[in-house]
């Protein structure tokens, strides 16, 4: 079966959409981790 070339564009668009949202959520998770660490540090230092 010859794959429809249109499917490449379709799947690329869908995959890129989720890659963009995933990257943003990953950045947010990293930021949240950093903030949690800073809160812990502040708590320890009183």
């Amino acid at each position, binding site marked *: 079966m010859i794959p429809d070339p249109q499917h490449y564009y379709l799947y690329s668009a869908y995959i890129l959409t989720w890659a963009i949202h995933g990257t943003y959520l990953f950045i947010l998770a990293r*930021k949240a981790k950093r903030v949690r660490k800073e*809160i812990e540090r*502040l708590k320890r230092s009183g």
Partner: protein
Amino acid sequence: MKHGFTVLAVITAVLLSFALYTALVMAPVEQTMGNVYRIFYYHVPSAIVAFGLFFINFGASLVYLIRRNTKADMLALVCAEVGVVFCTVNLITGSIWARPVWGIWWTWDMRLTLTLVLWLIYVSYLVLRRFSTSSQTALLAAVLAIFGALDVPLVYFSIWFFRTQHPSPVMGGGGSLDPHMGYALLLNFVAFAFLAWLVCWTRYRLEVAQRAVHEAEAMQSLMEGAR
């Protein structure tokens, strides 16, 4: 609060999964474009959600300019950031759709150019928020947001005001849409709106925590300086 967040996350996941199924499987094939038209189930909702978020950013910026309300400032920042993410998706999916349909990735068409300008304005807004150390940053950003918001109706109405290559809206633009396609589009819009709500909520909580940490650090260094 935490319980509400979990419920929202579950609803969003279910909606997104079902919306993906309707977009790829349930919606019928378009006669002229074939399956590639299905990109519009992500392209159009992303644009509407981005415009909605920029509109909230505009309202929150106005409130900040009038009342100097910190919560409004945080809401404006959060909506601009999440709006830029959705606007990026809109630009990229549009470009991927254009390649097989128009034969080009990009053209300096009025709607495309104005959308790119809109994206650049809000990226500038975020760069200003991120790197400016002035005490007037929030004020400057609020003013920039007002100008940015002026571009939103220009993008939307550019199809009527100018000769453009971009397709007219199927709803409210004189076109008609198969009911199954309309259902899939609506469902994807609702799912994306829920995703935006969830992400904005997460980002807002993070912003509150970040500001609290900065305040605590400032207090700590003040107390250390006083000793």
